[in-house]
């Protein structure tokens, strides 16, 4: 029939030749990989989805067919809606395969990588809300895949940077991720990338690089503000960014200048770290100990005077003016298979090795207290944090047991001469009775001012009653020092899926990393632990240049699984 038609209409049939040539030409152009695989249209991972969705990942056939017939985003959207429902019902296990499929179907959906990594790295927890850290390399592999599929936008780099910083606490890794964002995306949001980059440098102990990063952030914000056609909102965000970055740069410069001199002047702290590890019952261990956690007492760090803009340093302060026991430094407790190292996964998979046992917890140090003979303390029925005004005068709360040791008298009695009040005690009373305004400089009374102020206090019965007696301030006859302590019972018996204890040998590692310590502790001991020492547990070899406190306790399977109470380590 066609032959007859062609013969009858040779002119019309002839048009088919150029048309066919055009079709083949268009198809051939389109077949070139650089055209066909333009990232937004057909990323390479879609091919992986084509293979896996029919075979391995469990996407029903009709979904696969629909997905491959031009409705990829629709299926991805539907799966995302479904995974949200699973999230709200707490069924995190069900979300993982969906994330796998969605990122195959739509490899450019940035939110899915971010949310998926968050699920993996934060939401899988045991009964006591400890993260299942076996998922960390899996989450990182997902983010790496997201970066590979979206290498020109900053979003997934930023997510990886944050997870490295906050969850993995690999600050060098965080630096690398944030640098990747800046190098690949000229439109990277400065507040979300440059600022955390500077913080990451600081945590990695790279102080000069951190200052340089703040400097760079200021320049980038300023360049953004000069871009034509930016909205007021973007302008305001960058203007705030300039302010914050300048201030942070100044703070880093101050600390860089003052911390070494403070440590040299105050000497090295002997942390005297002690820990006892006890198995209380099968799969339950108790970790308790004490150590000298010394830091800058609340609000007593003298940064100096800033210019009116609050950023530029006008006068460099003295730095740490008062140190003593503080609360808040974390002791990391990690129980793992002996010699476990976090693996690097080439590609994201939602399976974790069930044989691995890995538990990590954080125990906070608190309760350190000190009072000198003739110094002030607050007598309280129960130990606890002192009020801010007392804390900033290095006045601690003492519970009845400590009060018996200090053997003090109420402040009103002491002021009549019942107990001698030391020079430090006088300073403490004056500071509590006549607190300086929050913006005064210097923030604290100098020793030269104290005699006159103390004389004034002696004659000011009303202030003594209202500011001191009412607070139950006492003056100690004897000095007292108690180090900070930590204690945590870690129950791994309720989550056998997470803690399988399949290996024969394990290690319990307790560590304090100065780089993760709060600023007020670093002000005393430095970014890298230069200002502390420990006779038994100082570790300056695991990470060169970093002086950690690290205790490694080897444990056998029986140590953990055995029944009955047993002290596993004391030292």
């Amino acid at each position, binding site marked *: 029939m066609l032959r007859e038609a062609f013969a*009858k209409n040779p002119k019309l*049939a002839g048009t088919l030749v150029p*048309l066919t040539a055009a079709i083949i030409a268009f198809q051939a*152009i389109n077949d070139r990989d650089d055209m066909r695989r333009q990232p937004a249209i057909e990323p390479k991972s879609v091919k992986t989805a084509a293979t896996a969705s029919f075979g391995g990942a469990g996407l029903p056939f009709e979904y696969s067919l629909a997905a*491959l017939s031009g409705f990829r985003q*629709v299926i991805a959207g539907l799966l995302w809606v479904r995974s949200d429902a699973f999230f709200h019902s707490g069924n995190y296990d069900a979300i993982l395969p969906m994330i796998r499929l969605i990122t195959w179907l739509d490899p450019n959906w940035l939110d899915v990588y971010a949310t998926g990594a968050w699920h993996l790295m934060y939401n899988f927890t045991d009964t006591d809300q400890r993260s299942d850290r076996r998922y960390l390399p899996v989450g990182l592999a997902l983010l790496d895949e997201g970066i590979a599929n979206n290498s020109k936008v900053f979003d997934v780099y930023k997510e990886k940077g944050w997870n490295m910083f906050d969850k993995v606490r690999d600050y060098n890794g965080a630096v690398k991720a944030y640098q990747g964002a800046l190098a690949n995306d000229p439109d990277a949001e400065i507040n979300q990338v440059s600022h955390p980059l500077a913080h990451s440098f600081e945590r990695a102990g790279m102080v000069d690089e951190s200052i340089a990063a703040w400097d760079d952030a200021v320049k980038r914000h300023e360049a953004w503000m000069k871009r034509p056609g930016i909205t007021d909102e973007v302008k305001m965000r960058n203007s705030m960014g300039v302010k914050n970055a300048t201030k942070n740069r100044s703070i880093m410069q101050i600390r860089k200048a003052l911390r070494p001199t403070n440590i040299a002047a105050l000497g090295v702290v002997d942390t005297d770290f002690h820990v006892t590890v006890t198995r209380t019952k099968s799969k339950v261990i108790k970790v308790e100990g004490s150590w000298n956690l010394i830091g800058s007492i609340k609000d007593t760090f003298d940064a100096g005077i800033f210019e009116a803009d609050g950023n530029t340093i006008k006068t460099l302060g003295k730095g740490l003016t008062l140190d003593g026991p503080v609360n808040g430094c974390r002791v990391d407790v990690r129980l793992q298979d002996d010699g476990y190292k976090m693996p690097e996964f080439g590609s994201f998979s939602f399976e974790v090795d069930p044989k691995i046992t890995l538990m990590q917890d954080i125990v906070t140090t608190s309760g350190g207290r000190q009072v000198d003979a003739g110094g002030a303390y607050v007598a309280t029925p129960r130990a606890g944090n002192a009020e801010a005004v007392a804390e900033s005068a290095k006045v601690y709360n003492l519970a009845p047991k400590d009060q018996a040791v200090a053997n003090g008298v109420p402040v009103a009695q002491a002021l009549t001469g019942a107990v001698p009040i030391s020079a430090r005690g006088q300073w403490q009373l004056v500071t509590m009775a006549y607190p300086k305004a929050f913006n005064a400089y210097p923030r604290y009374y100098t020793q030269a001012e104290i005699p006159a102020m103390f004389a004034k206090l002696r004659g000011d019965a009303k202030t003594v009653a209202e500011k001191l007696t009412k607070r139950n301030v006492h003056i100690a006859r004897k000095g007292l020092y108690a180090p900070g302590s930590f204690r945590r019972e870690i129950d791994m018996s309720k989550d056998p899926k997470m803690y399988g204890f399949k290996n024969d040998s394990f290690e319990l590692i307790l560590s304090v990393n100065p780089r993760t310590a709060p600023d007020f502790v670093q002000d005393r001991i430095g970014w890298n632990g230069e200002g502390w020492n420990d006779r038994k547990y100082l570790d300056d070899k695991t990470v060169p240049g970093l002086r950690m406190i690290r205790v490694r306790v080897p444990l056998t399977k029986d140590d953990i699984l055995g029944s009955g109470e047993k002290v596993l380590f004391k030292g």
Partner: protein
Amino acid sequence: MNTAMVIARNTISEALRKKILNAFLMVGVVLIALTFIFQQFAPRQELTLVKGMGLGIISLAGLFITVILCINLVPTEVERRTIYTILAKPVRRYEFLLGKFFGALGTLGINIGLMGLAFVVAVAVKQIGAENAVSPLILFKGILMIAMQMLLLAALAMFFSTFVTPLVNFFLTMVLFVIGNLSSYTLDLAKNSQVAIVKYVLLGVHYVVPNFGNFQYTNPLLQPDVVVKNETLFLTQNCAYAVAYATALMVLAILVFDRREV
């Protein structure tokens, strides 16, 4: 050509009277409106979902409207014998066929245009107050690609309708639509195949079956951070491909229909 246009106009008015097509249009519009139910997500995710679902729904509704409309245009006239009346007048066969085709395109244009408009308005409303919102007008690029895909599909269905029954046509067109969407996979399979005959069969399939996968342009519209290397080239090439292929199919259809006994 005037004759073809008269037939096209009649085809459009006849098609728009068909309840089934209007039902698809209504379903499409309602589904687009329903995408507003995703209130539990962050605004950016919500917009991604709304845009993705909206374009998907237009595409899906467009697919059914195109296939159901085009497989029946010629056979219905033959079945009802109205074609005799038409061809008895000074109407050439190719004019009749082109008239039907242009009528189908007009109907599709109206349907996709209305759904597209509803969709763009819906996204614009959704975006009110959103941070860093991208102009909803760029979504028309995606709608243009859907329209081009349907133009090609309509030509394919029209071609088949000149010599097969509507039922066979339905399956043929749908199967080729799916295979055409997998065009890049057939090429990958051909490239990786070690068996020569399989390689050439796959290459043949890749070059002969219309490449419907080319018209998938949803992703760059969903993820404004991700852009194609050369958008103008990409869109122009796809439009030219659709027009060239559809023309070739219509030439073939005319040639076949010319010799067909009705």
